[in-house]
C-alpha cells in the first residue's frame, strides 16, 4: 500500500517534470542572453528582417475574432435547430456536418484554395476565417446541440406562453442556459485559430497577410544560413502565453466540454 503510493508519487512527479520541462525551458531560453537575462531575443523577434511585425499580430487577432464570432454564430443557431426543432433534412445535415471530421482537411485545402480564388477571397483573412469556422463546425455543432437538448423544455415553453418571440426566447432564455457550451466552443475556436499553421500557409500568400504563427515559422524556414533559435523560442512564448492564460482560467469547462464532445462525437 505504502510502497505503491510512493511509486505513484515518484513516477507521476518524474513524468510531470518531463512534460513541464520543455515549456519552462522555452520561457528560460527566451530571456537568456549572452551576458545574462534580458529581452534581446524578443527584440530580434520583432525587428529582424523576416521577423514578426505588428501587422502579423493584428492579422492573428482579426482571424481569431472572426473565427470565434463566426463559429459561435453558426454553431449556436445550428445547435438550437438540431437540438430543439424537427424539420425535413435535419438528420442528413447533422450527419454531413459531423462527416467533416472524417474528411481531414489537409486533403481538401487545395480545392478550398481554388474555391476562395473564384469567390474573390484569395489571400484574404476573411476567407481563412470562413474555412477555420467550417473546420470548427463538427465539434461546435455537436457541443451546442447537446447543450440545447439539456435545457428543460418547460423553460422555453413558459417563455413562449409569455409571448416571447422565437429569437427573443433564444437570446434571453436559452443563451444563458447554454453558457458553458458557448465558453468551450469559443475557447476551442480561439486556440485553434490562434495557432493554426497549415491552413494559413496554404490560403495566405503575401507577407503582410501572414498570421503570427506563419511569421514565426517563416523565420525558421526562410533562414538559409544559421537559425536564430533564441528568437524562435521568444516567438514560441509569445504565441503560447495567451493560450496558457486562457487555458488556466477556463481549464475546467474546456476539459469537460472537450471530452464529452470527443467521446460522443
Amino acid at each position, binding site marked *: 500500500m505504502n510502497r505503491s503510493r510512493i511509486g505513484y508519487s515518484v513516477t507521476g*512527479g518524474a513524468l510531470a517534470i518531463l*512534460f513541464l520541462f520543455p515549456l519552462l525551458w522555452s520561457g528560460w531560453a527566451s530571456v537568456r542572453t549572452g551576458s545574462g537575462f534580458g529581452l534581446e531575443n524578443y527584440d530580434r523577434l520583432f525587428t529582424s528582417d523576416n521577423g514578426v511585425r505588428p501587422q502579423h499580430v493584428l492579422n492573428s487577432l482579426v482571424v481569431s475574432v472572426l473565427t470565434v464570432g463566426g463559429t459561435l454564430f453558426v454553431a449556436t*443557431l445550428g445547435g438550437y435547430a438540431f437540438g430543439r426543432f424537427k424539420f425535413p433534412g435535419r438528420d442528413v445535415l447533422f450527419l454531413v456536418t459531423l462527416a467533416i471530421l472524417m474528411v481531414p482537411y489537409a486533403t481538401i485545402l*487545395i480545392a478550398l484554395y481554388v474555391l476562395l480564388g473564384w469567390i474573390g477571397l484569395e489571400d484574404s483573412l476573411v476567407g481563412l476565417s470562413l474555412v477555420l469556422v467550417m473546420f470548427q463546425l463538427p465539434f461546435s455543432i455537436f457541443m451546442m446541440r447537446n447543450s440545447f437538448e439539456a435545457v428543460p423544455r418547460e423553460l422555453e415553453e413558459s417563455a413562449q406562453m409569455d409571448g416571447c418571440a422565437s429569437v427573443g426566447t433564444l437570446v434571453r432564455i436559452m443563451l444563458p442556459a447554454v453558457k458553458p457550451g458557448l465558453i468551450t466552443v469559443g475557447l476551442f475556436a480561439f486556440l485553434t485559430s490562434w495557432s493554426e499553421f497549415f491552413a494559413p500557409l496554404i490560403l495566405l500568400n503575401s507577407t503582410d497577410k501572414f498570421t503570427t504563427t506563419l511569421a514565426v515559422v517563416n523565420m525558421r524556414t526562410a533562414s538559409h544560413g*544559421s537559425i536564430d533559435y533564441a528568437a524562435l523560442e521568444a516567438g514560441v512564448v509569445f504565441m503560447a502565453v495567451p493560450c496558457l492564460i486562457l487555458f488556466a482560467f477556463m481549464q475546467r469547462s474546456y476539459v469537460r466540454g472537450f471530452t464529452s464532445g470527443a467521446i460522443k462525437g
Partner: protein
Amino acid sequence: MTIVTTPRRAQRAEQAGPPPARRRFRRQTRRAWLGIAYASPTAVMVALFFLTPLVLVGWMSLHRWPLLAPPTLNAPDNFTTIGDNELVRSATWFTIKYTVIITVLLFAVSLGLALLVQHRRRGVGFFRTAFFLPMAVGFASASLLFLGLLSDEIGPVSDLLRGIGLIDGYVSWTSGSANSALGSAVVLVLWRFAGFNMLILLTGLQAIPPEIYEAARVDGASRWQTFRSITLPLLRPTIALVLTLMVTGSLLAFDQFWILTRGGPDNSTTSLVMVIYREAFIRLDLGSAAAISVVLLVVLVVFNVIQLGVLRRRSN
C-alpha cells in the same frame, strides 16, 4: 363538428381560431420553418466550404490544373503518374512507418498516463494538468520549441547527454540522420498529444462501474488479470476512438516535419501531405496534388468507415 363553408361560418371560425388539430399542424409547420431558418447558416457553410471542395478536389484530379493557367482535361494521367513519382513512393512508405510507430508508442504512453491518474489521489489534479498542458501550445509552436530544445546551439538535450557520456561531439538531432530526425518528431508528438489522448482514455476508464472492480477483488483476481479481463474489454470503444484519431492524425502529418526536419535529410522524413504541398505550390501542379489528395482521402474514409463499423458492432 362539421365544417360548413358558408362565408359567415368561415368568418366566425377564423375569429375563434382554427380547430386544435389544425392549429397544432400549423404550429409544427411554423416550427419546422424556424428550424430550417436556424440551420441555414450551417447548411450554407457545409455546402460551400465542405461539399463543394470535396467535389472540386475530385474534379481537379481529372485535369491538368496549373496554378496560373486554365485547366484542361487529362484524366486519368494524374492518377497513373502517382506511382511513377519517386517522392510519392518514398513518402508513402515513410508516412506508413511513422503512423505505425506513433500509434503504438502514443497509445502505450497515453494509456500508461491515464492508468496512473485515474483515481482521486494526492497530486492527481496537478499531474493531469501537467500532462495535458502541452496541448495548450499550438502544434506549430511546439515544433519550433523542440527545434530549439534539440538544437546543439541552445538546446540542453545534447549537453545533458554529453554530460553523462552517452554521446560525444556535435549531434544534429533534427537533421543528422533519417532515424534521429524521425525520433525527434516522435518525441515531439508524444509530448504534445499524450495528455490529450490520456484525457479521452480517462473518461472511458471512469465510465467503468467500480462495482465490477470490487467484484473482481473479492474473487481474488490479480491486478494484471483485472486489467486484461475487465479494463481492456470495457475500454474497447474508447480505445478504438483513440486509435482512429492517432492513425488519421499520423497519416496527415505535416507541421512536425515541415518545421522540425524540413523533410530531410535527403527527403527521408517527407510525409504525404508535404508531397501534396510540394506538387501544388512548388511544382505548381494542382491536378497532381488533387489526385494524391483524393487517394489519401479515399483511404482515410474507408479506414474510418471500417473503424466505425467495428466500433458499433462491439458496442452492441
